[in-house]
């Protein structure tokens, strides 16, 4: 049977960090103040480190610019992107909390159809704290939501569900389209409020958008590497996609769930489609190869931790995607660097030894 509804507000106050990448300013935080103020923020400042990013009064935060990243990671800082919001994953790495919520600085509070402000963070927390159901699709969507349940025919043995690793939220107003679609439909706005949360079934991949995302860092953190993008790289705007594909393969392997749907945020800024096209160009061709790669990827039974799974994936990336572009060899190495850095910053008794050279921290 569906679990009782989760009590709202101030949940996980000391167990959740909000990670925000920014290169401009944090003015958008004013609108989020009623919902974010109780939580700790991790600001990852991209671009020129000599610029000062002002954080609105009253927020509890830590801020890292490029100098900090270089100082903390040393040579391993090479795996963190520069001039791309992919740098946000540094925030995941330095966090000490169990859960992460990440949001872009052009995302604001949306209203639901009744006109009420949507507390996106609260909905993400509900999603993460209730189980997922990846093994059999429930036609009434998330059975753990208030007012919903499993339908006739849903096996009882599958009704306990599995832990939810990721909660993927959506966006009203400017939809997350790629550059070609933006060019063809520059005025299309997403106005449809779909009142559903659902589990992405096991074995199914999806394009994960990093604009409005929450996850259980303790479960899946090491898999949330946002890749090499931006300055000096042949590709941009595929950071979250890459993380999403890796993450889903690993979640499917380890038996965890991924939810998508509510909450909505209001996405206000339409980026320049011509700039986007330049960034995405390679990605549009490469994704034709990448999707079949990830769909066919299997992980051996011996991979029982996220780090092991991720390193195994990096091996497969290097072996099978080099023929697509030498960039993927660089990316595979960066994936290894990321895991090394993660383990260094997050040592724990439960971590298994680093597979590549056996020298655990």
């Amino acid at each position, binding site marked *: *049977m569906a679990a009782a509804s989760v009590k709202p507000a101030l949940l996980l106050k000391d167990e959740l960090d909000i990670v925000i990448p920014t290169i401009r300013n944090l003015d958008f935080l004013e609108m989020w103040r009623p919902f974010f103020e109780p939580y700790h923020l991790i600001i990852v400042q991209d671009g020129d480190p000599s610029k000062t990013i002002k954080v609105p009064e009253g927020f509890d935060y830590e801020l890292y610019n490029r100098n900090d990243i270089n100082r903390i990671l040393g040579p391993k800082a090479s795996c963190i992107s520069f001039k791309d919001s992919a740098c946000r994953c540094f925030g995941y790495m330095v966090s000490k909390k169990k859960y992460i919520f990440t949001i872009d600085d052009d995302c604001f509070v949306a209203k639901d*159809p009744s006109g009420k402000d949507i507390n996106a963070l609260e909905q993400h927390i509900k999603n993460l704290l209730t189980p997922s159901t990846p*093994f*059999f*699709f*429930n*036609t*009434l*969507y998330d059975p753990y939501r208030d*007012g*919903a*349940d*499993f*339908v*006739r*025919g*849903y*096996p*009882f*043995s*599958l009704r306990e569900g599995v832990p939810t690793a990721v909660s*993927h939220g*959506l966006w009203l107003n400017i*939809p*997350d*389209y*790629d550059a070609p*679609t933006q060019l063809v*439909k520059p005025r*299309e*706005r*997403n*106005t*449809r*409020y*779909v*009142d*559903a949360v659902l589990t*992405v*079934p*096991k*074995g*199914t*991949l*999806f*394009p*994960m*958008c990093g604009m409005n995302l929450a996850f259980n860092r303790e479960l899946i953190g090491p898999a949330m590497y946002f890749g090499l993008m931006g300055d000096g790289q042949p590709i941009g*705007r*595929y950071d*979250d*996609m890459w993380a*999403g594909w890796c993450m889903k393969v690993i979640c499917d392997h380890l038996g965890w769930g991924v939810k*998508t749907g509510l909450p909505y945020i209001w996405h206000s800024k339409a980026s320049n489609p011509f700039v986007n096209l330049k960034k*995405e160009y390679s990605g*549009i061709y490469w*994704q*034709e190869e990448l*999707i079949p790669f990830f769909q066919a990827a299997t992980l051996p039974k011996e991979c029982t931790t996220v780090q092991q799974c991720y390193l195994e994936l990096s091996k497969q990336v290097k072996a099978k995607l080099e023929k697509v572009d030498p960039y993927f060899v660089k990316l595979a190495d960066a994936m290894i660097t990321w895991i090394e850095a993660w383990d260094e910053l997050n040592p724990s008794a439960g971590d298994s030894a680093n597979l590549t050279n056996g020298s655990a921290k």
Partner: protein
Amino acid sequence: MRTPPSLLSLSIDSALLNLSNFSDLSPLPDHILLDLFLRTLKAGKLTEKILMLFMATGKDEVLALIQSLNIQLITPVLPTSKKMSQTNIGDDEVDIVIGALHADLTSFLNEWRPLFSRFHLIIVKDPDLREELKIPEGFNLHVYTKSDIDRVVGSSYTAINFSGYSCRYFGYLMSRKKYIFSVDDDCIPAKDDKGLSVDAVDQHITNLATPATPFFFNTLYDPFRKGTDFVRGYPFSLRSGVTCALSCGLWLNLADHDAPTQALKPGHRNSRYVDAVLTVPARALMPVSGVNIAFNRELAGPALFPGLRLAAEGKLRWETVEDIWCGLCVKVVCDHLGLGVKTGLPYVWRNDRGNAIESLKKEWEGVKLMEEVVPFFQSVRLSQAAVTTEDCMLEIVALVKERLATLDPVFARAAQAMADWIKLWKAVGSGSGSSRPSNG
């Protein structure tokens, strides 16, 4: 000298021109609201949506005027629907098949009349039903009864039992149309979250006539719906989609829960209108509810049949699993053949009926069987040689005999029913066009 119109009058005229952009008229002072209403009437611009806008203000004078003029909401007999014309599906390509488990279909058909009246209907009477069917005038329909079933099916297909909810499958057999919509006879049209009537037939046809996208999940749901598209990261090679073979609708009020769930929460009703259609991804299985479905007859027909019949199967959905079984067959076949299955809109309103606890006392076998059924279908792999739905079904029959039949006699009977159905479909059901066995 003519007095020029006042500024107020011009404003009201302007409001009239832009009426469709208003979402709330309550801030208007009473006398202006009234004037706007009268001008709306005079201009012939009073639609259902606009009437509701005025009524939502709650202003007494306007409401009194509406009442005194006897203005009522009447759903048009020919619903104006943009979607239908976009998909170019003719009315003559659709059959609406109703399994009659109740003899008196008067109120049911009258509720659906605005949506059904332009289509051909096939009504199949539950062979166990003794009373004569009561059907109101004004429909284009064929009625099949026990004698038709006996005549067509004869004694050669003993494993197939058309009684109860399974009677509708005889209608699928007899139909010669491309698309079929089927709904339980205890459902009526629903209203959406804005209070407007849902044209379930139109939505199902749209679902079937637009591509499905099973190979990669689109986070904005059905990309072929108006106002949405494929998201960033969706491979272009997958954007043309595949044919949708089955469209599974949902239910407001009494949702299709199983008996234990409903028994535990007797007051629980589904009130959430989720404005989405989505493709169920490849290799993801789901429980298909027969309460509100539509399908492409040629592609899905051979996989929709009376197969898994419970020992104490009854006349309430809580006492059946036959539709769940068929749905799993259809999904496995679609995944193998590269076809799609959609779920979500449209909703129908399912009337309260029956008692979950009574059903649970009588029939819990179905709940138990699902524990075997689901893992079985999850493990089914079909061969490359299976290129039609019939081929696929015959391979599934062999697998059922091999893996499930020994677990419970109900599966052995299901396998036999499936084999018989394919033969029957080939003999009687195949083909399209205007010829049809005569109505007995």
